[in-house]
């Protein structure tokens, strides 16, 4: 078995603009994903908007500077994640493809293998 991080990226403005009906359909789709994954889904969360992120970087004085906002400014922001445990990449792709963000035109997911110990 192998663990993967599924990173969910999308256009935050489009996420914010969802109607209540769309939001509840979206949540239902995530529940369906979790049910389909069963024990393979180890965890996952939705994240607050990237505008409330805080980033820390080293500064030349040996300390760190704090900045308001995400680490990387990108058009598509990280909106949530899952950690899954499946036999191989084909299984990870098959499961991740069930996420509603894969079907929507303004979002998508990235699958990253987690280094095994």
């Amino acid at each position, binding site marked *: 078995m*192998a663990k993967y991080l599924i990173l969910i990226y999308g256009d935050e403005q489009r996420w914010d603009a969802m109607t209540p009906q769309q939001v509840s359909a979206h949540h239902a789709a995530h529940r369906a994903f979790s049910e389909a994954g069963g024990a393979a889904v180890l965890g996952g969360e939705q994240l607050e908007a990237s505008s409330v992120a805080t980033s820390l970087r080293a500064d030349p004085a040996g300390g760190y500077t704090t900045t308001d906002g995400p680490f990387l400014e990108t058009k598509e922001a990280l909106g949530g994640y899952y950690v899954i445990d499946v*036999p*191989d*990449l*084909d299984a990870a*792709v098959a499961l991740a493809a069930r996420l509603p963000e894969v079907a929507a035109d303004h979002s998508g997911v990235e*699958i990253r*293998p987690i280094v*095994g110990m």
Partner: protein
Amino acid sequence: MTADVVAAVAEAHRRDWAQVFAATARFTRDLDLAEECTQEAYAQALQTWPRTGIPDRPGAWLTTTARNRALDALRRESVLRRSLPLLVAEPVPGPEDGFASDDRLRLVFTCCHPALSRDAQVALTLRLVCGLSTVEVARAFLVQEATMAARITRAKKKIAAARIPYRAPSPEHLGERLDAVLGVVYLIFTTGHTAPTGTRLVRADLVDCAIGLARMLHLLMPREYEITALLALLLLVDVRRDSRVSASGRLVLLAEQDRSRWDRAQIGEAAALVTEALRGRPPTRYAVEAAIAAVHAQAPSWAETDWTEIVGLYDVLRELWSSPVVELNRAVAIGMRDGPAAGLDALAPLLAEPALATYGYLSAARADFLRRLGRLPEAAEAYEEALTLTDNEVERAFLAGRLSEVRRAADHRG
């Protein structure tokens, strides 16, 4: 070392590399180690066979030798290795899965996995399935050896780290996965058939790799019509290999090729495959392309080609696989059926097609129709445009020849 042994090892390399490597990789579950051991087994054959004689089954000898090398290496460095996870391989292939139990299919589907970029798929397939050296693969794609080595290393690392499974796809995914494999084979063939730049028009090693791959896939999955069709298509295009370039290295158009040099046996084999492939319903892209190539291959001459049939097949093809290049070829066929004025009309809408804006064959086709209509200054302009769009020296020499011919005729006319 006798010439017999050298020839036998070369033959075993061509015929058995994929099998030896694939079986070794399933055993080692490590592509790098399998590559090393397979290579060593071939080197060992050159040393051992002069003493022992050439074995009855060279492939089996090489597989056993590679496997023993792997065992030694694994015993020696079991602690050092394992910086990357092992290949995900199914423990024991079920007896019911038929073709999926073949190691070569596991290998080819893994090399052409959709999670790898097309560049990586092609490089891995040439290196691991066809057994080309990294230098040869680099040369085929006109990149530095170091660049190609890095590309292959990164692809192998992704297979291990992302756990791309070492197996053939399940039946429900076979269609899309096979498309990727056939796309790779086709790309290798076309790269070899018209080398993008350089002084030679054909790179025979790549063409042979592609045909070898298509033959292997056809042998392992005889019921997949798309494979049958692709094999037929490659064989039919390949019969023109020797007649496409004159003794002096000049490009010879299909219209002017010496058809007596075409291998009739190969055409016969391919035509039977086309018939077989067309039984698949609905017909597939490669089947229709192969049928078009078969009409050309079986025509006694360019003039006596059944252009009505060719236009009809392009009409089917554009429904299945619509692309500006298909439209261009269809327009050329219309010109052949109905005359150069009709051809020019058929080409006209394509001039606004952005995908063809830098496609030299469009300018060349226009130039040819204009020349035949006697519109010489316009023809000269079109040849000039075509010349700026190809880097292949053989094609350039052909176009330059036509250009000066047209200019002379135009001057003569005043």
